[in-house]
């Protein structure tokens, strides 16, 4: 085979880059945002409540419900308390950065669009081993799951590519596709650095200069300083507040009252619960059996919030068509 022959002569110089290569972290974000806004996405901003993934941003979780088309792109710093390593591990981060794209409904050429976005950030697809390997996604606290792949670039996972099937316990009509780019990994790959803290964030600053203190201090908080009793209290408080809201919403009769009701605030509180749960988990304050029970409690609340939101949307549509007549 000629391929085997050429392999023997394969140049190896690329393994150790001499001068800075690849996009800076912020240029990577600009390019991807530009790419997707050019494809019709609106540019949203990170959510201002702690989340573990871009999926939890209401721009994904709530927007994929219901029939209205929607396209959006945003960066979401995502907190995973258990993954913190005090800034000492070259690949693991307490807070990593996801670039999230939602396309609803799913375009038939969605894989091609995605691959074009990689080319847009300087990845030549004939020079790299890019592949889609089975990886289905599930979020027990969101009552959500989807089918898809992890996209691997030369063996490194760079994107989670998911066709949502359900969120908040509801079948989706139409189906949305979610693209979650792991920005930190893509940047370190493009720049050819082994340690994410060596990534150039901008021309002048490194990832370490921008983010190291967060990693060190939040690892300390999540593993050592977080008071399990206080954290549990905060969890319980947030949970009972969601319960109160959900119950109040259910008691409402008039469509107008329902439409004005703060379901979105109830959703924020669900996110609080989810984050506090993660802190407790990282702190080792949750036993295995309790774990499943707590996850289930949060899921039930999020599913109720999703149902409320869906109802509000349909009331909105009914009100609009009523006004039009």
């Amino acid at each position, binding site marked *: 085979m000629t391929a085997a022959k050429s*392999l023997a002569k394969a140049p190896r110089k690329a*393994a150790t880059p001499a001068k800075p290569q690849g996009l800076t972290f912020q240029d990577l974000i600009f390019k991807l945002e530009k790419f997707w806004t050019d494809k019709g996405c609106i540019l949203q901003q990170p959510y201002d409540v702690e989340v573990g993934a871009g999926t939890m941003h209401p721009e994904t979780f709530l927007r994929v419900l219901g029939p209205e088309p929607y396209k959006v792109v945003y960066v979401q710093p995502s907190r995973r308390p258990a993954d913190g390593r005090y800034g000492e591990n070259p690949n693991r981060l307490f807070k990593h950065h996801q670039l999230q794209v939602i396309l609803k409904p799913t375009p038939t050429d969605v894989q091609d669009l995605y691959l074009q976005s990689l080319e847009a950030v300087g990845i030549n697809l004939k020079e790299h081993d*890019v592949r889609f390997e*089975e990886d289905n996604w599930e979020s027990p606290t969101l009552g959500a799951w989807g089918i898809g792949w992890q996209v691997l670039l030369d*063996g490194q996972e760079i994107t989670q590519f998911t066709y949502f099937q359900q969120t908040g316990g509801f*079948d989706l009509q139409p*189906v949305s596709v979610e693209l979650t780019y792991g920005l930190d990994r893509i940047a370190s790959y493009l720049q050819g650095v082994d340690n994410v803290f060596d990534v150039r964030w901008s021309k002048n600053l490194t990832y370490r200069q921008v983010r190291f203190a967060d990693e060190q201090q939040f690892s300390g908080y999540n593993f050592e300083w977080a008071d399990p009793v206080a954290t549990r209290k905060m969890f319980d408080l947030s949970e009972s507040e969601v319960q109160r809201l959900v119950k109040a919403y259910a008691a409402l009769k008039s469509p107008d009252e329902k439409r004005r009701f703060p379901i979105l605030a109830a959703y924020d509180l669900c996110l609080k619960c989810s984050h506090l749960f993660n802190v407790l988990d990282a702190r080792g304050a949750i036993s295995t059996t309790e774990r499943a029970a707590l996850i289930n409690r949060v899921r039930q609340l999020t599913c109720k919030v999703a149902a409320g939101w869906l109802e509000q949307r349909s009331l909105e549509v009914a009100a609009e068509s009523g006004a039009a007549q």
Partner: protein
Amino acid sequence: MKGRAEFLLEIGCEEIPAGMIAKAAGDLKQILETQLATHRLAQKGSVETFGAPRRLIAIAREIILKQDDITQEILGPPKSVAYDAVGQPTRAAQSFAEKQATPLEKLSIVATPKGDYLAVKKVIAGRFAKDLLAEIVPQAIRELSFPRSMYWTSASDLRFIRPIRWAVAILDGKVVPFTLAGVASSDTSSGHRFLGKPKIKVKDSAELIDRLRRNFVLAQPSERHKKIETEIQAILAKRSLRLHADAELTELVTYLNEYPTAILGDFDPSYLNLPEEILLTVMRDHQKYFGVTDKDGALAPHFIAIINLDKDRKGLVRAGHEKVLRARFSDARFFWEMDQKKKLGEHLPRLKQVTYETRLGSYYDKVERMRTLARWLANTWSQGGVLESHADDADRAAELAKCDLVTDMVREFTELQGIVGGLYARAQGEPEDVATAIYDHYRPVGLDDPIPRNLAGCSVAIADKLDAIVGCFAVGAIPSGSSDPFALRRAALGIVKILLERKLPLSISSAISTAANALRQTAPHIEVKPEAEAQVLEFLLERARYILRERYGYAYDEVNAALAAGGDDIVDAIARVAAIKAIRKAKDFVPLAAAFKRIRNILEKSAGGAAKSNEKSSTVKPELFREEAERELYEAAQRIGEKAHTLKRNAKYKEALEVIAGLRPAVDNFFNKVLVMAQEEEVKKNRLALLQSLLKEFSTIADFSEIVPEEQN
């Protein structure tokens, strides 16, 4: 116009999970063949199917382009109803003719087994294959089932494994038109995602395969497989390296790539300090790389990756894979170092926090039970003088066996459970036998997996598995159909395999009772019913029958005959199965078996129900014998019984069976000369008692009545 032609189908998809392609291709073949045969378009075996990540291809050769017309006979009313006394058609005949839209004079009378009937012959015109295929193919695609399918437009639409993006359907050079989830069939395929043309027009299968190849898609798995093997060998030969062969991985990468190419990468030799098991797991399970060894079999600091390109143009792919592996290995080293800060035994209290099964308690509870059971097994064997003592090692290994579940290494690489525990135990100075036992205690994970290497490992492995089975049966989590979430069937096969291969004598029922008692100790809220214990025994014996048949090659009836005479000790049972197999060719054996079957039938009839070889029999009274043949049989049985007994005690089962076969003349003579059901009640009872004692006496090695004569077998 020619009568037959090829039909080509290609379903173009987004990347199908590698593990599902071969099965999907197999299912597609079966469904299409059935449909084509049902519609009289082709014979069975006429369809070839195969797949690659982005396509499933079916080629049906010699499709009949137009169905033959068929003549159908439709029966109407009986002749007697259809015509009156003078032979005139009645109202019934007329309405039948109207219904069939056929003039009365075209109807005929046919003779059937039920008499003469009015009938009409109708010709059903054959349909064109292209029209039928347009219906069959979408149906066949809907019928394909996958473990987890999806929808991609909306919840009401077609479900498939991944979105369908194109469909090639060509019969005799022309497109067969249909639409599938919004995709219209065409004559246009698609090449390799990055290297090939996105649109490739084809007219038949030969052109498809050829043009795909030129567009960097090897459609046939055999071709991909060959390319992988050839290139790996070429890489290794130059460097006198050897492949850490892995058939499963080869199969996987064959289905992960449309144009597989092998490349070699390196890693820092300092990582070779880590155990080989960990390095190989990271490479194989997480990165799908092949490990490489030097010519002495030691792991070398290289790996082979299979990429989906024709070549690594700038060496970027290699550099990328090396970087990823470096990060993975560095994680593994970090975990190893972190984990060494604590001794394995220090993790034990944390197992209280890890649920084994909600009703069966934590892993800590399970470990308690495993210890009890492992010690009991070891003591049973060493007290019997069968094996050297290993109870302390078994107990210690059971105590530490599950501790690795809470280590960082196993939390990251769960597939290394057991192995990591064993490696840590060794590194932390536990006795070698203990470390080996921990390392091996999940074995065997399949029928081809080796059993634990030492006795302590066998004891712990059996304890672990038997505890799982007994516990799950006690709480009603019994495997049914395809549902076996705790892999209890595999556990049962594992137990039987260990006992048989290590030749470990064991009363399985006593072991089950011990496991049940241990469960009662740690989980008093669970009621372990005697029926559950009996179910577990039957469950294990079912696996034993399977292994004896499928792995040891014994016949159905040989296995049944031996186990019907007792299967509690499976090692003893297999010796008896072997004896039965060895002797069944002897000339007296099968007729004797037939005679035993007859004896059993007679006893069953007289008892009005099932007669068992272990049923309590009344004493035979020689003074009640009326015929010489009775006495002869009685005496022969006593003489032969004594000899057989001695041989059996010494486990000389084949010899014992040979002796027993010597009963045949006496048995035959008895049945020729003696009427069992005599008039005199006492005589009859005595004869039945004689037969009962025979059945009982000679069924302890094998229940002969289970033997099926060769020609029926």
